[in-house]
């Protein structure tokens, strides 16, 4: 059953090989061209530092102060009424704001419930099917100096909401 793991491990080397082989076929000077492109990477990454510091400090303060726990308690009654499993609430709220934080929550859920339990599988899907919205917004807009994100933040967070419910629903529907 680990065919998929095998396939996903194969994806990276085969993509790299494809790019290089076609490059050779078209007589592209591989090394020089690579260097030319890679040069831009440094500036792009360094430009992100201010935006990333602002966002990651805010998320860290929000979590360590206990404000996140407070928010979870506040929205719990509403989501329980919508049949959203309350064990998954911290994960659903943390997923869009911190990738490392939500991964830690998944690890915790695996320890308590086991990876093959209903909760464990829902957590896996929730973590795997979405990205850290706040991080993606910060990095993408930060890299070109966009200050007015217009409706992108709203769209990102609303689709995270859809994603959380879709993860629960998908596992629920597909369980044998």
């Amino acid at each position: 059953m680990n065919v998929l793991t095998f396939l996903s491990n194969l994806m990276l080397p085969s993509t790299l090989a494809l790019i290089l082989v076609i490059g050779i076929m078209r007589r592209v000077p591989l090394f020089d061209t690579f260097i030319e492109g890679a040069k831009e990477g440094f500036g792009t990454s360094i430009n992100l530092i201010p935006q990333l510091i602002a966002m990651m400090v805010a998320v860290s303060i929000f979590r360590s102060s206990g404000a996140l726990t407070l928010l979870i308690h506040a929205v719990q009654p509403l989501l329980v009424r919508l049949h959203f499993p309350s064990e998954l609430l911290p994960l659903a709220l943390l997923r869009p704001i911190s990738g490392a934080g939500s991964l830690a929550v998944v690890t915790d859920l695996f320890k308590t419930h086991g990876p093959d339990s209903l909760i464990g599988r829902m957590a896996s899907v929730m973590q795997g099917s979405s990205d850290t919205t706040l991080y993606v917004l910060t990095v993408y807009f930060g890299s070109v100096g966009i200050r007015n994100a217009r409706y992108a933040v709203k769209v990102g967070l609303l689709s995270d909401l859809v994603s959380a419910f879709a993860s629960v629903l998908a596992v629920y529907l597909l369980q044998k």
Partner: protein
Amino acid sequence: MMNVIWGFLMLSGIAVAAATGRMDTLTQGLFNGAKDAVVVSFGLISIISFWLGMMQIAERSGLIRAVARVVRPFAKWLYPSVPVDHPAMGSLIANMSANILGLGNAATPLGLKAMDELQSLNQEKDTASDAMCTLLALNTASLTLIPATMIGLRLEFHSKNPSGIVVDTMLATLIATSAAIFLDRFYRRRARRKRQRTMDIAA
């Protein structure tokens, strides 16, 4: 909106810490957050530089153009404001392909390259264009075929079926990505109507 979220996270954190006497954890959280941000930025240098290098080869060899031809109708539908033969289209398509192939750490560098090229088409340099918003919608929802990190973590916790979540994840990610595309179109249309109205009033 970003200003509001940032202010909310900072102020509510400080308020809660003050109310519950957790000022020392707050200070620690502050420094850890700032340190993590620098670590992440430096970590990005390696992976962004590497993929931008590979991209340059793929671009020079015509590989990107070949892939672009195949997915052109779909890309044209997603990004109606980007001319099909503009370099931005190539990067948008490369970013999409990396997401679908599950090359998560290639998707970001390619997405940033796309942002850079979209910025050259953008008329108001500090405001996101329609195409940028669509790119963000797709990347925050992140269409994933194989959730490699989760399979790895499940394996570590002795799951009997580590990859048993792949189909579920595909279904969830498909629903979420469709929702993201729909929401993006919905708000785009609304913004356009609003702009039209203000222009009518001005005229």
